[in-house]
């Protein structure tokens, strides 16, 4: 039913589709080419900057630079190599673990914050809304630098805390590094996701609350029976964006690598692997293959999440 035929971003899709139909009902614009004058510039740049690189990456992934004979067509051999590459799987497993742990924690915190701000039971709700959002404006690079300093044992906060309390915290050790990165990402995007949830909460019609009140529903009942179902679409969207973000993980580990060279390898995440393959190893064909594989994995998972998310909605 509400399973829109196209994968991610279900809610924005819903409105456009309605608008696709609306003109005809009004007996409005005849179908003609005028609209292209507006859409064409975007689509030209889109074709050059998005479609062309994808096509080029697919083309690259089918070739291999041979020592003898130059560039040779190898069919799917690069894909076979990636899928049996222990380094690739190690990096993939790491971001998957990251995804499974960090994304639910971050989204739960965002949701709690959004519900609190929306509850009208808060002193200074407007202040909290903007305060929590601010880290989103901080560049990922700067966020990683700041947290890197904080984690550091030279002049970081961690060093100070260890000194004062006699603890042995080591956020940059191999054991803790993934959690430390998760903390940075949570810090950066919690407020952004909170805002997505908050915007969805705001459009719940007031009559629903009035009805709930008449039925004698308490605050928690209202949250679970009205608010959470109403923001399901937003949760699906935020989950999809977070999945894409997790699989793309690069900035934070790449910057922390300077501080923790032993804990972060050159294939810590698939993206770092692809990057180091191209720019340290000149293995462009193989790097393109890794990128395509990650794209397919991301698209499939995003699609599954979207399907599951909207199926529950039907219930």
């Amino acid at each position, binding site marked *: 039913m509400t399973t829109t035929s196209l994968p991610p971003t279900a809610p924005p899709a819903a409105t456009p589709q309605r608008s696709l139909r609306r003109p005809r009902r009004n007996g409005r614009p005849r179908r*003609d080419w005028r609209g292209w004058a507006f859409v064409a510039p975007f689509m030209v740049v889109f074709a050059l900057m998005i479609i062309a690189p994808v096509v080029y990456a697919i083309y690259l992934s089918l070739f291999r630079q041979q020592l003898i004979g130059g560039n040779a067509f190898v069919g799917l051999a690069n894909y076979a190599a990636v899928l049996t590459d222990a380094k690739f799987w190690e990096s993939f497993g790491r971001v998957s673990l990251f995804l499974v742990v960090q994304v639910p924690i971050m989204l739960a915190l965002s949701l709690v914050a959004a519900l609190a701000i929306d509850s009208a039971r808060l002193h*200074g709700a407007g202040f909290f809304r903007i305060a929590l959002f601010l880290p989103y404006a901080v560049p990922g690079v700067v966020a990683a630098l700041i947290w890197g300093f904080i984690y550091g044992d030279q002049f970081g906060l961690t060093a100070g805390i260890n000194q004062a309390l006699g603890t042995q915290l080591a956020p940059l050790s191999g054991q803790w590094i993934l959690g430390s990165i998760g903390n940075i990402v949570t810090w950066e995007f919690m407020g952004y996701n909170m805002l997505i949830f908050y915007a969805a909460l705001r459009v719940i019609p007031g009559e629903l609350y009035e009805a709930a009140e008449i039925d004698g529903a308490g605050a928690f009942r209202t949250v679970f029976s009205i608010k959470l179902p109403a923001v399901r679409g937003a949760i699906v969207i935020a989950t999809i964006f977070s999945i894409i973000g997790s699989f793309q993980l690069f900035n934070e580990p790449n910057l922390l690598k300077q501080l923790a*060279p032993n804990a972060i390898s050159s294939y810590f995440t698939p993206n770092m692997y692809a990057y180091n393959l*191209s720019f340290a190893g000149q293995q462009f064909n193989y790097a393109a293959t890794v990128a395509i594989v990650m794209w397919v994995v991301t698209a499939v998972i995003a699609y599954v999440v979207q399907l599951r998310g909207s199926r529950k909605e039907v219930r």
Partner: protein
Amino acid sequence: MTALTERRKAPSRAAARSNRAARAAAPVSGRRTRKSTVLTIVMIVFTLYSFVPLVWLLVNATKSQPDLYSSFGLWFGKDFNLFQNIAELFTYRDGIFLQWLGNTLLYVVVGAGGATLLATVAGYGMAKFNFPGKRAVFAVVLGAIAVPGTALAVPTFLMFSQVGLTNTPWAVILPSLISPFGFYLIWTYASEAIPTELLEAARMDGAGEFRTFFTISLRLLAPGVVTVALFAIVATWNNYFLPLIMLSDPTWYPLTVGLSQWSAQATGVGAQPIFNLVITGSLITIVPIVAAFLVLQRYWQSGLAAGSVKQ
């Protein structure tokens, strides 16, 4: 209690007004606007989490290099060195930081500006016209959202190096020109905000489509456009991966890549730690973008609420 919560509490003197204000702020549970202290404390914890790193940055930007090592992270050092740090920041290596700031501004103005323009015009076209191939445009752009931006970066780099675009500003600007998010936001926003009858009336008066767009529609789209512009500015201002791979000449670096290189020079052979400059530079980097969000918050919050998440 912070000054801000104090100010928010002030209207409670006029109970009726506070009630109305609370309901306007969040259309929730009619009369029940009894404030919860527990909830407020929870949110203060959230806020501390968000603020501690920023406070750390602010405090440490005032320290000299030796003070960084010798003083506690969340309190000031012996000397107040902020202004010396800023002066050194802008003169270090012949003022390359200023060059990076200029580059960042260039990428933001052309890249984010172009992205906003393209997304606005195209989103409007999608919302208000019916044309052959519209469904195909919809499907293609939607499918592309799942493409991880960084997955594109390596192929884009190879493509650009074939045509000699790498290591030029274009290598950073051109890929920033596409904002699928902006395209959607304006599309949904325009569907709601621009009455079709208004366009009909303009057409009756003989106004051309582009004239109608620039004189009538654009004004109605303003909150949506501000939102798209702001998020495009953040995306280009914070861009790191793309310039990192595209640029090898430091004179074209944006702030993000420059700062990470400075931070990297603290380790390895011939290490020259300039942490005080990295920290002060980080502070200078985030000030404009944070200021933009704070100043424009009325616009982007309404734009975001009305456009993107409406279901």
